[in-house]
């Protein structure tokens, strides 16, 4: 396996512009002859499908939800970054680029990140043109707020529902193309495998979730926009349906998987309440703009928040990171929360929580301003916990939220399989070892609106349209394998439910490969995951049949893939003998407990090649070169 980066030469600032003028083009009259499959309809998938259809390509788009409007991008709350410098506070493309590279702890590719920062401004233009109702100032201009890890205000937002509004913008653009017949939409369809013929991605095998029918779909290129894999932990802020199946299947067919152990744990989520907990709810990071995080100074302090005087409160982020305070980046804020809880200073049931307190903000700004900024988040918190955050401080705890790892892609966002493009959270490309807040929406839309519509031409211009239809042996073969696997899942007929296995896998991964990791724990996890996987295939009970809506069967397939992937994640965490960003190896830390990178040995992307279930995957390294920035110790103190 060879990692061909395809990064254009020349100065960082001109790479993308030059590349765009030099890329191959497909003539307008020929575009409709090319059929492109887009899997996923979130920000990346919907924007890509709509933009490609607008260009004239013939598009099929797949999503497992009942409507493309329900993809998980919809749940993003806080905002989207763009280097517009509307606040005149010194922002620039370079600064956004630099913040993102530094935020990612110098483990991402300069050229990709620079392009992302460059494109960011056009995304806001595009979304406003579509009618996204961003927050405005009284004079009618767009409003901004600040977000974790940066010192400028560059985040655009639509109340606490930015993801929803951006997704509805992309969904409506997609709907328009469906209406005019340029996109064929397959809702309630799940991609179960990738079909590769002579090294080229030529289509997918998908299951109609209502009829159970397995169908082959041929195309000239396949774009995966299927999101991240935080649900490997069972409990995460991801929607219940989020899964790794599409990218894992593609990995098994030859696409390298990059940095699987880079998983982000978000600091501000509502703590779990018990065994029945089915998912975790995020409270937007934007709350940290005005909320102050604290715990009692004394371990085991059982007094209510009101009873603890100011002098006995530890505002630990403000104390440890005076220049960023409560806006310290996510990885740091999460780790510090875990640390104070481990010291016995956590609050709430089980001691798994820290306070996020708005008392001072309400005093300073008045209740109505706080309500205007965060009203819907406060309501959401109250609905879930039964507590009113205007009078009682919120309790929060870290939870898995986003995965920086994903399929390896080159500068054109193509994977190691020709004709297979990967966009949005599903790829690894822009966030290194840690993603900054309000950057996921930016990346999803950059990939979908402004990168893949151009770079796809690089591949399509080289291949003739058509040439492989679903009667090809490879389609028949892959389809058979998919059918056989479903039959096997249903045939086990064991005693334990799919969810029981998923919970157990999640617990192992959270304990051993979660917020902090060590070599011994990772080895134990590898052992445990292997045993569990075997037990799964011998003792799972799925029930029902394969010929109608069977939600347990859907989940079983996804959990089976998580089991295979879990091992690769542990291998990756084990080989990366350094701490960087979200990957915190306990053996590698400074005296102050900060992550200690090892730039000599690990300034690279770890791209794994699949070699069979249960076999050790093969590691390929993409060295990272830093020309425009100098990797420094990432300090927020």
């Amino acid at each position, binding site marked *: 396996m060879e990692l061909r980066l395809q990064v254009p030469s020349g100065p960082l600032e001109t790479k993308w512009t030059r590349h765009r003028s030099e890329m191959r083009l497909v003539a307008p009259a020929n575009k409709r002859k090319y059929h492109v499959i887009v899997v996923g309809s979130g920000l990346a998938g919907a924007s890509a499908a709509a933009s490609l259809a607008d260009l004239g390509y013939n598009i099929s788009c797949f999503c497992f*939800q009942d409507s493309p409007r329900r993809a998980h991008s919809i*749940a993003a709350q806080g905002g989207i970054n763009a280097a517009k410098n509307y606040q005149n506070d010194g922002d620039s493309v370079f600064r956004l680029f630099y913040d993102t590279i530094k935020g990612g702890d110098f483990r991402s590719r300069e050229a990709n990140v620079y392009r992302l920062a460059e494109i960011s401004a056009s995304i806001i233009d595009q979304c406003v043109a579509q009618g996204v109702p961003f927050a405005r100032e009284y004079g009618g201009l767009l409003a901004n707020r600040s977000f974790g890890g940066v010192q400028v205000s560059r985040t655009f937002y639509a109340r606490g529902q930015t993801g929803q509004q951006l997704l509805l913008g992309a969904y409506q653009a997609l709907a328009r193309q469906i209406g005019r017949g340029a996109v064929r939409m397959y809702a309630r369809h799940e991609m179960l495998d990738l079909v590769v013929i002579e090294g080229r991605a030529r289509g997918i095998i998908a299951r109609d979730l209502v009829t159970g029918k397995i169908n082959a779909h041929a195309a000239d290129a396949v774009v995966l926009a299927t999101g991240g894999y935080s649900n490997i932990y069972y409990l995460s802020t991801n929607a219940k349906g989020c899964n790794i199946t599409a990218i894992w299947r593609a990995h098994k067919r030859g696409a390298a998987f990059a940095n699987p152990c880079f998983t982000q744990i978000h600091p501000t989520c509502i703590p779990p309440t018990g065994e029945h907990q089915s998912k975790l709810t995020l409270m937007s990071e934007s709350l940290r703009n005005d909320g102050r995080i604290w715990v009692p100074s004394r371990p085991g302090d059982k007094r209510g928040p009101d009873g603890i005087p100011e002098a006995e409160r530890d505002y630990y982020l403000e104390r440890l990171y005076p220049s960023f305070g409560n806006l310290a980046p996510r990885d740091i804020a999460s780790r510090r929360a875990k640390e104070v809880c481990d010291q016995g200073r956590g609050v709430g049931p089980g001691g798994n929580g820290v306070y996020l307190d708005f008392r001072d903000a309400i005093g300073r700004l008045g209740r109505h301003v706080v309500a205007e900024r965060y009203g819907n988040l406060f309501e959401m918190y109250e609905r879930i916990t039964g507590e009113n955050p205007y009078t009682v401080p919120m309790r929060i705890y870290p939870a898995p939220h986003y995965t920086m790892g994903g399929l390896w892609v080159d500068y054109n966002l193509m994977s190691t399989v020709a004709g297979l493009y990967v966009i949005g959270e599903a790829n690894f490309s822009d966030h290194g070892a840690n993603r900054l807040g309000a950057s996921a929406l930016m990346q999803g839309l950059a990939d979908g609106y*402004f990168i893949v519509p151009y770079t796809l031409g690089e591949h399509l211009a080289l291949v003739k349209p058509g040439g492989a239809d679903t009667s090809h042996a490879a389609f028949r073969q892959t389809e058979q394998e998919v059918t056989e696997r479903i039959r096997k899942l249903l045939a086990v007929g064991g005693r334990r439910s799919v969810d029981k296995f998923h919970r157990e896998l999640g617990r192992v991964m959270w304990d051993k490969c979660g917020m902090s990791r060590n070599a011994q724990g990772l080895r134990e996890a590898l052992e445990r995951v292997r045993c569990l996987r075997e037990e799964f295939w011998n003792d799972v009970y799925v029930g029902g049949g394969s010929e109608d809506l069977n939600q347990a069967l859907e989940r079983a397939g996804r959990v089976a893939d998580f089991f295979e992937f879990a091992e690769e994640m542990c291998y990756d965490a084990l080989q990366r003998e350094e701490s960087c960003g979200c990957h915190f190896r306990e053996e590698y830390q400074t005296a102050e407990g900060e992550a200690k990178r090892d730039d000599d040995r690990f300034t690279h992307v770890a791209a794994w090649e699949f070699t069979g279930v249960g076999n050790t995957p093969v590691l390929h390294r993409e060295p990272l070169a830093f020309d425009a920035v100098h990797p420094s110790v990432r300090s927020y103190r």
Partner: protein
Amino acid sequence: MKVELHVWRQAGPAARGEFVRYDVADVSPDMSFLEVLDVLNEQLVARREEPIAFDHDCREGICGACGMVINGRPHGPERATTACQLHMRHFADGAEIWIEPWRARSFPVVKDLVVDRSAFDRIIQAGGFITARTGSAPEANSLLVPKRDADLAMDAAQCIGCGACVAACPNASAMLFVAAKVSHLGLLPQGQPERYSRVAEMVAQMDAAGFGACTNHGECMAACPKEISIDFIARLNRDYFTARFRRQTSDVGGDGSEA
């Protein structure tokens, strides 16, 4: 706490459905309503019975996937709360709870509590958008939008497309859903060029999908988990009549726009 559930079970679109009683013990007041169904489904699986099918995804009240009629009310008894965000602390110990799918001709039952809401997608496809080709957008701040208009547009844009408004309406009308989109886009300067063609196309598609007419019951607003106001229906009606009128006069294009 314990609850007595009566759940609508229906094997498929053409099958005959019925309520089936299930008793669930050990329900925690901190559980969400869907988590009770999860617990029940685990018990059904353990007994080798088919679990209850229901749509759900984000479980944060924003994706709009979940939706069921709980004791006669879409999404249950709590104001501004989707079924996934409804917590058991709002029910009494021993409560008897009846759970049904959305009931509307335009939302046929797929299985148990799952219905087909693709009619909503078709309404958006018919005109619920602003045509803005990728790449040709002007600089964002070149267009000033008064905060009042942006806020009002956002109030309408919050619709999650769950279908509770249809389920609540005695006529199974989709007017609140359509009104929310028509108002969101029609309130913004970007939405003006297609304002009248949009409303005409969306209403035509709504009628074609078999949704009923609005007779001002206001049940939709009461059931809406995002509390979208029926004021937007007034806006829809005004734009719709303007579109009709414009279409009938000779100085406009076929789509209702100024010629």
